């Protein structure tokens, strides 16, 4: 089944926040952000801005009735700066005017004096100075200290991975207006409707029921609208509540890029020990996460970095410590993979380093260390239904890895100006929010008298196809046509207390809640059917919109059944609640069973490097992915391709450049480059691993949003291999993204 939004997308009819028809008198907002990365606010002068024609109000922390606090996990981030500023672009004030031009003009007329403090942008410097957002966390298994002596080989190294701008094509935005009874309705481009509701209630000092948040769909999220859509929704709500007028804000791209947080850059040290038959015996790493100026989701993200710091390998002795470092950059936030890619890049680098020093193929080490059934993950969970070995072996067979390697060798021996490289990237990614209480969801299902069905859940559609999957669930439970079913907007008055659509879990959580609701309704309808046919419920079922009695089609159709049930005063509305079973985690011990299941896969990436110019093209990416029993191969393949390309972008092209004063230099699409159609791999081939899929996945179809991004990590190592093929002096290093600049410098480095 194709994405149900497709037709509206290709005709431009799909509605995003900025497309909602505005009410008369709507005002437009613009955010005044701090021009300095760190300092004390001495004075702010709004007078010139206020006197500008069209300006209707300027709001700062002084106008907040409730608490000036938007921090989610840890309350350490004001909506508007009060006495100090901690990053460039930190919101200081919000101007609303009769039109956007006036609002933007007013921003330029606000004068601010700041006494500047020292600016830190490097996480290691922050750590040295004791600037940590949260205490360091360590994941441990076995005993590394004792193990080093038993290792035949030990290698150490340093790894850098850059941040990543989400670059959702729809920028952050919201539209808020007063409603009846002193309430506010907010349309927000957010992945987390409840979060917006909760924080807006805190800012406005209103109970949550006075804030209604509605999301139809968002124009891309990738994690960037999990927490960071909230401030812009709150600003619009605040101005709207105070002025009692509709207020809209749609961030200008440059502001969005400067003000919002990104994927965390990490700087790391590793030490890896191997036996002479290349078993990894010990792994130790220190990871310095560049958290930015406030916590945002950093504590959760650093957790996932730790969870996935050994990727798909079993290493009996590990000790990985992660520091969440406070710097004067925008608070970094969720981004597809949620810290896991950064952790995986370090272990893959460690293996690459070992292979390079030992002069063996990286995959020789990789394939000998894959996690096996009943091994223990370093966080205590026993590995069950492990598919990494299957994925790798299937890839090896299907795609003939040996031949690929041989062909590359031959190509490289014949060509001077071009060189090729290949890398294998295995992945293992745990599914569930690592914070156990978040693994719950609800669905509200109405069957209308005419047999049509309306569904509300907490899931936000952002292109990942969750609404399509939800329709599939309802259609399969009821056995009715999909065109009878409509997915309503995500709205906090219909489904409350939702978790954000994140952690690849949108379909699993909301789909299961929906399945439960639909099953209850089905049970009632079957009872009605049994009553109509005067038979036992076990003798009837619905099949293709028709009532079937003792395996024989009746002439009673879905619509009639629904109508009969209604007239019989049966409730045709149901609320389903789902909470993932089994999972638990004890943070004090850093042990437990945090994941419902794991997603596995293997990618083979090949690249051709133009050694004259230092530019490159990815020839092929061949993937064996563990989808479980995919419920929608069109959507799931789209997630694999999209995730992969985003991962390759992160590893090779997308480079955030900050000046020493904390200013983002790559603050536009002309300076920050994401993959275009010419820069993606020429071929992407996806093979689905044949498995029946885990019970805890929706219809045994595994979560798909994040895992494929990490295939992109292979791009770094393929490229590094091709550099080595040209320059034998090149000493393998780990400093992502490997841009054309870095590639050329390494091609010709001595």
């Amino acid at each position, binding site marked *: 089944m194709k994405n149900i939004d497709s037709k509206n997308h*290709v*005709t431009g009819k799909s509605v995003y926040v900025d497309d909602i*028809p505005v009410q008369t008198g709507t005002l437009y907002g613009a955010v005044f952000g701090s021009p300095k990365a760190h300092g004390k606010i001495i004075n702010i002068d709004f007078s010139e801005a206020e006197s500008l024609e069209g300006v209707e109000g300027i709001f700062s922390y002084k106008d907040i009735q409730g608490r000036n606090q938007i921090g989610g996990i840890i309350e350490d981030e004001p909506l508007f700066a009060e006495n100090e500023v901690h990053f460039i672009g930190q919101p200081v004030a919000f101007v609303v005017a009769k039109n956007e031009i006036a609002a933007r003009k007013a921003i330029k007329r606000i004068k601010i004096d700041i006494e500047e403090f020292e600016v830190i942008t490097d996480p290691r410097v922050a750590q040295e100075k004791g600037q940590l957002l949260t205490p360091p966390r360590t994941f441990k298994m076995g005993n590394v200290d004792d193990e080093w002596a038993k290792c035949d080989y030990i290698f150490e190294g340093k790894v850098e991975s850059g941040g990543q701008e989400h670059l959702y094509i729809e920028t952050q935005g919201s539209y808020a207006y007063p409603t009846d009874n002193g309430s506010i309705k907010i349309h927000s481009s957010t992945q987390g409707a409840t979060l917006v509701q909760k924080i807006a209630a805190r800012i406005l000092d209103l109970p949550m029921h006075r804030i209604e948040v509605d999301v139809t769909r968002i124009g891309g999220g990738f994690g960037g609208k999990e927490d960071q859509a909230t401030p812009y929704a709150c600003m619009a709500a605040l101005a709207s509540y105070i002025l009692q007028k509709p207020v809209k804000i749609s961030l200008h*791209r440059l502001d969005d890029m400067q003000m919002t947080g990104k994927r965390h850059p990490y700087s790391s040290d590793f030490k890896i020990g191997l036996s002479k038959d290349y078993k990894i015996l010990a792994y130790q790493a220190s990871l310095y996460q560049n958290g930015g100026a406030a916590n945002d989701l950093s504590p959760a993200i650093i957790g996932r970095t730790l969870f996935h710091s050994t990727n798909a390998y079993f290493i009996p002795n590990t000790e990985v410590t992660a520091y969440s470092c406070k710097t004067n950059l925008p608070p970094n936030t969720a981004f597809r993979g949620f810290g896991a890619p950064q952790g995986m890049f370090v272990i893959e680098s460690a293996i690459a380093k070992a292979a390079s020093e030992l002069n063996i193929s990286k995959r020789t080490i990789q394939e000998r260390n894959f996690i096996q059934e009943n091994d223990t993950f370093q966080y205590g969970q026993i590995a069950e239904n492990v598919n990494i070995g299957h994925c790798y072996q299937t890839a090896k067979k299907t795609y003939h890895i040996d031949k690929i390697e041989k062909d590359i060798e031959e190509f490289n021996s014949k060509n001077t100006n071009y060189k090729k490289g290949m890398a294998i990237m295995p992945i293992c990614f745990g599914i569930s929010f690592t914070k156990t209480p978040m693994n719950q969801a609800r669905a509200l299902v109405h069957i209308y008298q005419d047999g049509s069905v309306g569904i509300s859940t907490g899931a936000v559609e*952002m292109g990942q196809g969750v609404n399509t999957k939800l329709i599939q669930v309802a259609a399969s439970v009821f056995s009715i046509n999909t065109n009878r079913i409509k997915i309503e907007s995500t709205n906090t008055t219909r489904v409350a207390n939702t978790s954000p659509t994140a952690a690849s879990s949108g379909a699993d959580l909301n789909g299961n809640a929906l399945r439960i609701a639909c099953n209850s309704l089905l049970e009632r309808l079957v009872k009605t059917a049994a009553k109509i046919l005067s038979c036992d419920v076990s003798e009837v079922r619905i099949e293709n919109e028709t009532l079937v009695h003792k395996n024989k089609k009746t002439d009673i159709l879905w619509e009639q059944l629904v109508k009969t049930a209604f007239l019989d005063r049966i409730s045709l509305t149901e609320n389903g609640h789902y909470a993932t079973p089994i999972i638990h985690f004890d943070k004090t011990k850093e042990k437990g069973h945090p994941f419902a299941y794991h997603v596995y896969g293997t990618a083979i990436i090949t690249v051709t490097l133009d050694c*004259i*110019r230092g530019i490159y093209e990815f020839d092929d990416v061949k993937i064996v992915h563990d989808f479980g029993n995919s419920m929608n191969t069109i959507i799931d393949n789209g997630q694999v391709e999209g995730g992969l390309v985003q991962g390759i972008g992160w590893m090779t092209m997308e480079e955030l450049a900050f000046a020493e004063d904390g200013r983002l230099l790559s603050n536009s699409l002309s300076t920050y480059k994401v993959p275009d159609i010419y820069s993606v791999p020429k071929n992407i081939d996806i093979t689905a691993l044949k498995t029946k899929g885990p019970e805890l996945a929706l219809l045994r179809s595994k979560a798909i949003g994040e895992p494929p991004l990490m295939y992109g990590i292979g791009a770094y190592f393929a490229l590094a291999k091709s550099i080595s093929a040209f320059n034998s002096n090149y000493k393998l290093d780990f400093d992502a993204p490997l841009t054309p600049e870095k590639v050329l410098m390494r091609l010709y480095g001595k």
Partner: protein
Amino acid sequence: MITFILNNKLIQTESHPGTTLLDFIRYDENLTGTKIGCREGDCGACTVLEGTLDNNKVIYKSIASCLTPLGNAQGKHIVSIEGINMKELSPVQNAMVNNAGTQCGFCTPGFIMSFTAHSLSTEPSDNELTIAAISGNICRCTGYKSIEKAAEDISELLKIKDISDPIKWLVENKHIPNYFLEIKNRLEKLEGLNVEKSENDKIIAGGTDLMVQIPEEIAESDIHLFYNQKDLKGIKKDKDSIIIGSASNASEIMNSEVMQEYFPEIKSHFKLISSEPIRNMGTIAGNFVNASPIGDLSIFFLALNVNIILKESKNTRQILLKDFFINYKKIDLNKGEYIESVIIPMPYQKLLFNFEKVSKRTHLDIASVNSAIFLKMKDNIIENCSVSAGGVSAIPKYLSKTSEFLIGKTITNEVVIKANKILQEEISPISDVRGSAEYKRLLLRQLFFAHFIKLYPESISLKELLS
């Protein structure tokens, strides 16, 4: 007043000619299918079609509405996504649906419009051209493979297109609505109407630089629109030179038969310059006047040692392009003067020319370093030569010493190595977001080598150059 046709509707507006076409479409006309992604022509979400009456035909191309001053729409047919919607999906829309080429959907209308521009073109379709049509569209969700498949389907469908009258064919085959058939007649009625001419010296042409740099200022200034001035357009051969009208855009230059005759590789060179919609807008004079040290057209034409004709009311003067660039963003242009035309001296039947560009992303990006070379050979001896390089100096750099050194030499690896030493003395790159100074030096050396490796693959090799 600005008069044009938007979709099926005649627009007569008193809006400021310097406001963006994008805002007019979205907020004045409430056509919200056209999206705002970046407001700098780098994402394609706001792509619309611009239909121009030309030789009794309406010629359509894709443009970035975020960089189009409303005044440039004068006399045109502007088409937004709403203007191609019919009762049933068009084959282009179907191809995107069938191949799952859309996920979050925000970029999708832009892709549809770029594809539709390709459908409307008078060139025969092939896969490469179909992909080129969407080279200015960024999608953050799909990873493009599904869109590539849609492009394949589209180019397959268009194989039987009647290129002599694409509009009629497309209407008959339900690619576009019927009203397109009437547009030619309707546009003819608008001929002769013009936006009130301003004598102000704030000249704006395609808008691809100024609408990024100073959109607010343009939206409020008295501006002088150059984009549609027919007397400043056109590319023609004249005895021993080629004359390019200053308002000719990059697409017109790369598609010109004259240019293709003398520069057989111009299409592949220009493919490295921005994207299709931006090439459809950005003019040669605009690129020169903007004086960006990495302006692709500046570098291309510097190596051809072109002359430019500068005009001020009735006076004209001619200078070499290399003398036009004085210092960073400082040019030899007096108040009230504008570039009327560009003259390529072309006394040769056969010339050797190459253009190289490397940027972080190969396409739709600004160069880290670019370079062009022109060589005129006589019996294995370099009779004439010009080398240019961008991103290595405060101005688009004409490498006069390097060029001089090469004249009279036979091309050998040794000569190239020596020339590079001189070249390195001539440049003064700085570190910025497009690369460190060290990188730019190395990269220019490589691109300089690449010129010779490409032009003389038998005698020049990377291996020899490095030894």
